[in-house]
């Protein structure tokens, strides 16, 4: 999968309460959730994000609650990939399980500014900052996780069995 989009950049410890505040968790509808994505730290995000854009963040992205509504809201907002220095563990498995592309790459996070145009080759892990010309390589996922990702999520792996 190849991705091309503009970068939205956030800091460390972006928690699931700001990705999708609990006051909106009375629905499971992805589009409704997406309307409130990031609103407590970036009220303009939903107005500015375009299909294919990417999100870049520091350490421990997605910490806090287990709500799968967080990766669901990010994906439904149009974001195609989240690149972070590290992910909180439940957000990490939720993204793998639901098919939101994520990548861990410290150098890319430091080397991408808000608004930069970025190309990502998800299968090779190559991240190119088109604006600056710099190229980064994300840590590859182990085989076990690649199988879930390539099946399109955890439940599809059950269907295969």
């Amino acid at each position, binding site marked *: 999968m190849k991705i091309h989009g503009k970068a939205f950049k956030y800091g460390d410890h972006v928690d699931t309460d700001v990705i999708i505040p609990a006051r909106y968790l009375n629905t499971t509808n992805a589009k409704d959730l997406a309307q409130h994505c990031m609103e407590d730290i970036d009220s303009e995000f939903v107005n500015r994000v375009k299909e294919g854009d990417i999100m870049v963040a520091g350490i*421990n992205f997605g910490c806090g609650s*287990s*709500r*799968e509504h967080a990766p669901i809201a990010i994906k439904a907002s149009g974001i195609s990939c989240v690149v972070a220095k590290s992910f909180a563990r439940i957000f990490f498995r939720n993204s793998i399980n639901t098919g939101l592309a994520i990548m861990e790459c410290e150098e890319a996070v430091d080397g991408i500014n808000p608004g930069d145009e970025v190309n990502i080759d998800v299968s090779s892990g190559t991240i190119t900052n088109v604006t600056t010309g710099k190229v980064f390589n994300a840590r590859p996922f182990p085989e076990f996780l690649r199988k879930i990702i390539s099946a399109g999520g955890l439940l599809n792996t059950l269907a295969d069995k």
Partner: protein
Amino acid sequence: MGMTMTQKILAKKSNLAKVEAGQFINCKTDMVLGNDVTAPVAIKEMEKMNIQNVFDKKKIALVPDHFTPNKDIKAAENCKCMRQFAVKMGIENYFEVGEMGIEHALLPEKGLVTAGDVVIGADSHTCTYGALGAFSTGVGSTDIAAAMATGYCWFKVPAALRFVLNGKLQPYVSGKDVILHIIGMIGVDGALYKSMEFTGDGIASLSIDDRFTIANMAIEAGAKNGIFPVDDVTLLYIKEHSIKEYEVFEADEDAEYEKTYEIDLSEIPLTVAFPHLPENTRPVSESTGIDIDQVVIGSCTNGRLSDLRIAAEILKDRKVKKGVRTIIFPATQKIYLEAMKLGYFEIFVNAGCVVSTPTCGPCLGGHMGILAEGERAVATTNRNFVGRMGHVKSEVYLAGPAVAAASAILGRIAGPDEL
């Protein structure tokens, strides 16, 4: 190299002689938990996949505790979705309003989790049951959908940090202060992907409620799980509450820990975590001059009987400061009834507090105690993120029940020694 306590449980339940940190495993689950926020997402995914049966009707627990009693129509629809699923699948452990409690207080109380179990829940505070010597961890809705269908969950075997607890806590200092102190020390990602394994002579003096509170907040340090060894205190609790078979696991002598922390319990002060991360801790003695609008005592972290007892001791024959809304949430119906019989409710009401039915409500800014712009709360809950209890410009200060009760009386953050 030997295995940690967590690794030994995971090896056994994966039918492997040995596992090591970093290894991916498919592991059998003894209990799969969902709530009214997370289970509907799982149920809809299962419906999409046309999954018609669950792996075991006894090994699934569904608890409508977050937005219940139903706070609005959408929440009511989510509860209805879960209720209908429970009926259709014949799930035995569905707890309706009236018998439900906050899930992580309810499951141990009902005897549904025990030592040696592997428990997953689509709620991050599922790590609570580590207090009983179980491996328990929070996962997502898709994970519980897969586990409800198959009985299995995938894990990356965690490395471990060891916390050696020695000595005894000072009066009014509780499990909450211990875990806030530890999170302050290692940070909110200090145990990311890892087990927090508690050990040491000091554990014997910690009540089971203190251990629940400590294990409950392991996730706030980023941990996969927190776990306590099984001792007489654990066994007494298990025998009083559960008829399930249990198994006691112990870490190998030569188990590998990435780091060992020695903690003297007697040196831990009453602790407060300032906005907006649980790692922003200070002793209450250094938390002066902060006026508050609300106090919340309850939640899966601190809504147990011993928490209410501490609050009642402090609030007895006193009044909360005028203007400080003090809301007390017993975590389960059983705790509610016991607190009532012990006369705590009379103390609370006379002091000017309100007592609520069990619900997660205010902890996550759902309902029953939302903060307005600029307001501050002291809460015995577990998170103080931006907007967690309401307005994006409100503030939550985390503390144990003693500090919460004393703060309610004084209208500012304070310890009971100031009364």
